[in-house]
């Protein structure tokens, strides 16, 4: 058998085979046929020992050249096939295919607002204080300068458990509890649920408040204005202005209702020629109540006469409604998922 022509014909034949191969499986079959342990090259080489010793090197050299050539052809084809497969795969890639979406969780808007409020006051140096939701009349009313039969009690329709135990109508009793426990100076915010005997379009029997209290030496109403200005700017943006309107709460004096410049119309009262839907054209939005702690409250907790302080309280739902544009208060406690999932996460 003439080995040299047989060797020389291997590469062209492989090329012919490769030209027709269109898959990695066919490629592998060709590799085994030509280059495998029992392939055609090996077959030829297996006769090498039969040759006279002087011819062996020559044939060996030829065989190496052929083998390299075949490997090269083979690698080329493999690269081409790989590229083709990649191209085909890219052509099928659909970037618009939806993601494997994790569940969409959410926090209640009240939680988001309370977190934001407490975090702003936290940065300003306030601690968190909390107290019971079932409260005694003494802390809820009497020690806050609202003795029995005080007409100010009308301002807060109350759910009672017994004649002297009630669902707290505001977070203010926590002020008293905190002051009874701790000496001045102190600065706390009190987030929590409160209850009123009231249910209509704009009232729910349970809602949330955040109360603030700061007591120390030389604390003034100017400080209260400064602090609340910093707070509302944190929530509603750096250009927000506050307005203090004289008001009345039994446990603060002087007392004020605080309005902020409307964050929708910027205080102009109208947007695009229409009356502003948030401030109803007034340019101001009522946001919280505050005042300097009434001396009667300090007396009730036996604080020294030379301290002063301020307190403020705000309705969480009100802020959420303003901030998110929610029109109906009752939605907060119906827990419709279509509502709950709109605010975060």
């Amino acid at each position, binding site marked *: 058998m003439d080995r040299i022509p047989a060797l020389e014909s291997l590469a062209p034949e492989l090329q012919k085979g490769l030209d027709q191969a269109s898959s990695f499986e066919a490629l592998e079959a060709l590799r085994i046929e030509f280059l495998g342990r029992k392939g055609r090259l090996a077959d030829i080489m297996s006769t090498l020992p039969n040759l006279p010793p002087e011819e062996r090197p020559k044939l060996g050299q030829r065989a190496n050249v052929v083998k390299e050539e075949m490997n090269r052809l083979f690698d080329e084809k493999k690269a081409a096939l790989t590229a083709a497969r990649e191209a085909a795969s890219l052509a099928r890639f659909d970037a618009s295919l939806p993601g494997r979406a994790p569940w969409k969780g959410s926090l209640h808007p009240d939680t988001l607002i309370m977190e934001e409020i407490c975090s702003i006051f936290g940065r300003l140096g306030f601690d968190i*204080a*909390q107290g019971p939701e079932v409260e005694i009349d003494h802390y809820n009313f009497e020690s806050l300068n609202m003795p029995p039969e005080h007409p100010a009690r009308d301002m807060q329709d109350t759910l009672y*458990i017994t004649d002297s135990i009630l669902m707290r109508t505001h977070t203010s009793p926590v002020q008293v509890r905190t002051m009874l426990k701790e000496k001045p100076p102190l600065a706390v915010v009190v987030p929590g649920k409160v209850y009123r005997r009231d249910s209509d379009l704009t009232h729910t029997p349970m809602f949330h408040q955040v109360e603030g209290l700061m007591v120390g030496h030389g604390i003034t109403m100017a400080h209260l*204005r400064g*602090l609340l200005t910093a707070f509302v700017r944190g929530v509603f943006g750096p250009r927000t202005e506050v307005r203090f309107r*004289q008001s009345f709460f039994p446990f603060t*004096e002087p007392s004020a209702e605080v309005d902020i410049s409307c964050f929708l119309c910027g205080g102009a009262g109208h947007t695009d020629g229409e009356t502003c839907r948030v401030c109803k054209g007034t340019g101001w939005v009522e946001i919280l109540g505050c005042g300097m702690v*009434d001396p009667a409250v300090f007396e009730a907790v036996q604080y020294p006469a030379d301290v002063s302080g301020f307190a403020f309280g705000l309705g969480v739902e009100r802020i959420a409604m303003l901030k998110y544009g929610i029109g109906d208060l009752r939605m907060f406690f119906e827990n419709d*998922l279509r509502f*709950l999932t709109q605010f975060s996460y």
Partner: protein
Amino acid sequence: MLLPLSWLREFTPYEGSAEALGDKLTMLGLELEELTHPFAHLAAITTGHVVECTMHPDSDHLHCCKVDVGGEALLDIVCGAPNVAAGQKVCVATVGTVLPDGTKIKKSKLRGQPSHGMICSERELGLSDDHTGIMVLPEETKAGQRLIDVLDVDSDVLDLSITPNRADCLSVLGLARETAMAFHLPFAVPELPLSAKGEGCEVPITIDDGDGCFLYAGRVITGLTVAPSPAKIRYRLKACNVRPISNIVDVTNYILMECGQPLHAFDYDALQGGEIHVRRAHENEPFVTLDGQERILTSRDLCICDARRPVALAGVMGGLESEITATTKRVFLESAVFHPGSIRKTSRRLGLSSESSFRFERGIDQQRTIWALDRACSMIASLGGGVASSTLNASEAKPFVPAKILYDPSSADELLGVGLGKDFALKVLKGIGCPVEDTEPVWKVTQPSWRPDITRSADLVEEIGRVHGLDNIAPVLPPMEFSLDRSGRPESEFSFWLRVRHWGAGLGLNECINYSFVGQKDLDALNLPAENRIAIMNPLSSDQNVLRTTIAPGLLQSLRNNLAQGAQSIRLFELAHVFSKDESSETGAVETGMLGILLHGLRNEDIWPFTAADFEYSDLRGLVEHLASFLHLGTVRFVPEEDHPYLVPAVRLELGNASIGCMGRVRPEIADIYLAQKPVWLCEIDLEEVKRLAESVRVHFTPLPSFPPVRRDITVIGDASLTVGAVIDAIRAQKNPLIEDIAFVSLYEPEGKTDKHLSFRLTFRHAKKTLKDSEVDKERTNVANKLQSVLGVRI
């Protein structure tokens, strides 16, 4: 409080607009709720002159009128009123006008005769209830004018919200005093001198309860004729939302609105014995009030009595038997001051609040009581054609004593953080009517009789701040003082809960907030015990009459709400306090923070790339385990529990020796109440316990292993009662130091057999060397053999 601007102007010459006044009063603490124009609709009504008036040819009661309304042509108007007549000056609603009741006037024909407008009655104009005939204007009225310009009505009315401390502002007079101060205007009460020409008429007054009644005064007016009040008074009361009744009663209301002193007019002839006793009622004494209702009084109710019986519920409402009727000739007019708390108790107990009780509760200017009485007597006498008796009957059990306040003139500047100075303070205090002795170092300030809220130094600071304007104080951030006592305290509940909330939301749960109260029946439905519940004494409804003792009912209600909206995949969580009775607690309640998680329906919808499957036990358990790991709490033990009131199966959650809650499937018959057709998986975790455990956790770094792990699977075959937990516990019990982890891989239950095939993956690792395959195989065999002998299973 409704304040007609034109009424205010009778006391102080305020010339500005109602809006400007409202703004100013608002900043002074008298908030303008609304500016109304109760007679605005009268601007569309035209005055007319009935030039011709003939009977309708086809009717026995209609008239055909030709009316001059100032235009070129006369208007044809068919009118059905009995009193219409030629020559009258009348009020005409022309075509296109809309009347207060919504009627729109159209061109029409009445039995063939054209009618281009309507001649109106007082009722049609919204001026009174009178519909007996058309309203006839004075002779001199010119045709073609706007009715609102012709009638003397109060066109601008400010609706002010008066805070409970400002009793003095529940009157036109009080608001005029504020207005005068705010705009630096003079303030004067128009004189209405009483000419008490009538003969003396003694009405002996005995005050039995001087704590309840401070001052009681009265005067008799005789020779009266009860009739409607003049238009001006009727319209003014209407502007104040008070229904005009008669010239006597209207005056009492007029004076009440004007100067804040409630008055009551008795028919003097109905007062037996002609005497007055102010006393507490007898227990269960019946009394019929003006509104015709019988009230059963208690010994805490103060009443006004004649010689025999109660004739009025003091300060709250008069009695039916002594009320002013059409035939009343002689009136005993009462003007008194009662104890605020006493009036409030009675008014609240009976659910009977009146303009009078509202003012008595807040405090009356006792130095104006007799003045108001005489002013009213004068008005009644003149309107009713009678004379007031010269006898003033009065008994003052407790004269008004003004508070004398020692005031350090720097107080306001110190508390407000301003530099207003002493001169300003003095000006303000005098401006609000306080006599001031500006002595050193503190001033002596006297309380004005009309300001029950001014008794202390702080009250004066408030006034100075109010007049300066709280809004004019420059804002300054407060200096923060921190105390080392408060550093390093445990995390607040709020902040811990917030972490858990973020955990839940981050894992894809939706936070809800339910009311703390539910209905007793909701707790009954969950088979919960009744004895530890806290009931609301005055609930708004039976759905909200008890505090929830577990978090479940709220979550279940939210589930129902969402199912009703068609939701298919529900993953709710809530953090809230639950409440149960605890006699040892100050509030009688123990409040426990709970985390509730509820899973129901589809884990995922069958949309790409998911396949639809319902939530099952492992979904909820996975969340519980994740929470424990999130808080570094260690391994939770899930211990089956029998006889849970509303869960079956139920599993108790244990950590160490503490039980931290339970989880399971809501009993199907309960789930059914909440519209759930598929399993409802619920867990309740005690956050107090969890927080306590989390606080004791110290997280320690574990050095990373240097040698590789080797894994081997092992399949255990047992009968149906074999549990994953039992196998894992049995492997753990072997205490093989090379086993680092045991993971459950799969469950296979061959069809038609009771066998259970449980596969586990064991991770082996040696701390100091690389394990050889042969070593690991030997360990695996070892484990398998021991399992066979301990559990009686096949491998």
